């Protein structure tokens, strides 16, 4: 299986260490390279010890919110008489993000093992991998991996004689960004529209099918075997304080070597662009970066000299998000980017709450009109103002996700909006040239 992009020598390969091995997805390769050792080790640990190890690792949710994983697991009530479920969020849909795909394609057993360890930590015996519908081939790939694991006694009843039972199933989505929101995913897996739920109760207490549920991103589970195997402290040491381990960064946009790279938490963004990504395409200058998927506020070039961990990026008033690093050069029309981002959120708004449903749809219309040269000066403030009327007032974070990049683009690139007021997009010609 050829990789989609050349690895970088700067990578620190923990989760991706098997990428590029022959038959990296097979259970034989997995077993030959420490596979399922962490599960056997965890089997000897108490649930408290497992959770403690994950806490020590400073692993934070890789889906985008960055919530400490160990803490999340500790919220599951031990004494609940209900069955508990381990759900893997493989609904990877945040624009700019394409890492979970690789983890599932090249090392599926690592994810299964991570889920099994989560199962051990809360006495759960059933796991579901919720995969976005577009990733059909991965459902087949994972199905194969799961079948292998069953046939070799790594899933099912009395796994390897340990007395522990665990089943894993896949579940396909059918095209809805909102289902990446964890409670919307729960409604979706229950066969309903993917509408987020009221919180509390949180999924740890009332999750799938009214039962306590651990829900994590693919990359989060994939990190767990290494944490248990080599110790939480070792994992934590790879990153920065409170930001343990490595992260799969997805470089996209105007760099010479776009690709998915595993780098330590806290890796400098400019180095990421220049050294890992091979610098800007066509010798152009960097204009802006969206550091963690399209929901995050944009950073101007001069703001990009920063460590890519949750806290540092937050300090720069953006977010590390999902690891989708979207890089834009000097010829990029930021208004056009704002249009496309808002189109996306308007299309994906589930429609549940008014500010998101109506706000994103209205903003999309204004931005499309504006970019086509039909804008007026008053529109610029209105775009910012309407976005702020969505921010923090919606049922779930999708409204914020639509508002934050928009607000940042209006604030940081107001001149580009103003340049559209004379009836045309000033970047149109440059853009066409850049594509040739």
């Amino acid at each position, binding site marked *: 299986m050829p990789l989609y992009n050349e690895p970088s020598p700067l990578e620190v390969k923990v989760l991706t260490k098997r990428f590029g091995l022959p038959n990296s997805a097979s259970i034989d390769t997995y077993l030959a390279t420490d596979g399922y050792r962490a599960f056997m080790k965890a089997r000897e640990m108490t649930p408290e010890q497992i959770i403690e190890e994950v806490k020590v690792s400073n692993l934070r949710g890789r889906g985008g919110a960055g919530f400490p994983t160990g803490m999340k697991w500790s919220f599951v009530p031990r004494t609940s008489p209900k069955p508990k479920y381990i759900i893997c969020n493989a609904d990877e849909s945040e624009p700019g993000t394409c890492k979970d795909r690789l983890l599932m394609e090249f090392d599926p057993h690592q994810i299964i093992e991570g889920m099994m360890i989560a199962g051990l930590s809360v006495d759960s015996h059933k796991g579901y991998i919720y995969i976005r519908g577009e990733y059909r*081939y991965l459902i087949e790939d994972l199905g194969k991996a799961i079948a292998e694991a069953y046939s070799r006694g790594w899933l099912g009843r009395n796994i390897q004689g340990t007395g522990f039972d665990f089943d894993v*199933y896949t579940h396909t989505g059918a095209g*809805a960004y909102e289902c990446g929101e964890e409670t919307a995913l729960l409604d979706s897996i229950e*066969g309903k529209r993917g509408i987020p739920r009221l919180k509390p109760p949180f999924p740890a207490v009332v999750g799938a099918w009214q039962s306590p549920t651990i829900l994590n991103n693919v990359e989060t589970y994939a990190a767990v075997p290494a944490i248990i195997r080599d110790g939480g402290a070792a994992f934590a040491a790879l990153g920065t304080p409170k930001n343990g381990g490595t992260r799969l960064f*997805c470089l996209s946009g105007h760099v010479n070597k776009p690709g998915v790279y595993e780098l330590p938490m806290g890796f400098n963004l400019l180095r990421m662009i220049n050294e890992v990504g091979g610098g800007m395409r066509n010798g152009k200058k960097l204009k802006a970066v969206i550091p963690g998927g399209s929901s995050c506020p944009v950073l101007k070039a001069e703001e990009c000299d920063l460590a890519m961990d949750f806290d540092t990026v937050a300090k720069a008033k953006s977010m590390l998000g999902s690891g989708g690093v979207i890089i834009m050069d000097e010829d990029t029309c930021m208004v056009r980017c704002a249009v496309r981002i808002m189109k996306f959120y308007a299309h994906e708004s*589930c429609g549940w709450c008014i500010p998101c449903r109506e706000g994103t749809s209205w903003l999309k219309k204004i931005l499309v009109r504006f970019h086509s040269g039909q804008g007026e000066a008053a529109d610029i403030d209105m775009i910012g103002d309407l976005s702020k009327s969505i921010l923090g007032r919606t049922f779930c974070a999708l409204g914020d996700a639509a508002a934050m990049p928009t607000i940042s683009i209006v604030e940081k690139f107001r001149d580009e909006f103003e340049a559209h007021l004379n009836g045309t997009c000033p970047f149109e010609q440059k853009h066409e040239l850049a*594509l040739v």
Partner: protein
Amino acid sequence: MTFSPELETRFAKMLESYPEGRQRSAVVPMLLYAQDEVGEVSQELIEEVAKRCRVTPLQVDEVVGYYSMLHKRPLGKYHVQVCTNISCLLVGGEELFEHACRKLGLGNKEVTGDGLISVEEVECIGACSWAPAILLNYDFHHFVTPEKLDRLIADLERTRKAQ
């Protein structure tokens, strides 16, 4: 309604994979897989899925319109899905979509007269680092240029002639 033996086997396994009494969980996967086989989500299919998952047809219908991949009318045998979201946009995704439309003489979500090819502008498909990207049915194609797309379409059209 019955489906192919393979699909029936898949559905039987699928219904068993959820906790007891939670057959409703199979609604979305069942719709998607059945659509792949029969081409569209018809009223008959909605009622069939409702029966199998023990919900009302309305509860199934609510789901159909919610998920972008489910559609109530047939798309082409080959469905060309061009991503124009931000990462693809930066490297020509929108131009690629326009090119596909022009080439096929189709608008968004339209189907060629013979039902062979349809085209759709889609949201991020998770190929951002290898953009621009398209999905041809469920197959990913990365770093797609207009020329590469032309070749793909020409290949598809050859299957039409072969028929």
